[in-house]
């Protein structure tokens, strides 16, 4: 089962929305995943244990080798489908 780390500023608000949208979509697609939420500040130390990192805000850290997808589209709805495809591409 692929593991996804979803991060936002405090690991509570927008990451919850993003995480639930990813879970819902994966369920629909029949993809089993495990989702964990955290603060953006914790991503660098946790990312290695995950197959994918998804962040609501901007995140860039060259020390992180896990793929990172920015998921602002899941909040604004602009290009939401393209972002889902990108995320699913790492999880299929």
């Amino acid at each position, binding site marked *: 089962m692929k593991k996804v780390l979803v991060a*936002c*500023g*405090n690991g*509570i*608000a*927008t990451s*919850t*929305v993003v995480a*639930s949208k990813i879970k819902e979509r994966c369920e629909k697609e029949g993809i089993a995943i495990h989702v964990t*939420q955290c603060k*953006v500040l914790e991503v660098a130390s946790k990312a290695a244990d995950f197959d994918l990192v998804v962040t*609501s*805000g*901007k995140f860039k850290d060259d020390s992180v080798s896990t793929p990172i997808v*920015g998921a*602002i589209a*899941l*909040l*604004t*709805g*602009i290009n939401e489908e393209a972002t889902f495809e990108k995320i699913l591409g790492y999880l299929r």
Partner: protein
Amino acid sequence: MDSIHFDETQVLIIDEKLNHDEVLKKMADQLQVKGYVKDSYYPAIIEREKNYPTGLFTEAINVAIPHCDIANVNQGSICVGVLKQPTQFARMDEPDVMIDVQLVVMLALTLPHGHIEMLQKVVALIQNQDVVKSIVHSSNQKEIYETIKKYLL
């Protein structure tokens, strides 16, 4: 899910040109007067916006969703600010880029990973630009309240 406090007085129609901090102060004060948030809420909101801004660029009417750590909140609540004169917020996904925001939905959350339904509804509302338009073009507090209530509660 415990209930979210939201009534008509938590819809602020702001006609004057206020800057980012002034808008947030006015909205945070409204929640504080009601006892929903602590003294620490406003400074925490400002600090959060500095590090993790909440402006959402929508290609139409931009929205901001300021929020902060649950430690600063007494009771789950929201305050909605309709800015007749747009105020600049930094973008959540591009913190160096400022955007004109006309609708601010300030969230006071009490449960870690909680209030998810409400949050999802806020996001659904933001994504419905027809509704966002009807909100920011209205000058009727009750009408805005009823519209938002229909979507969020």
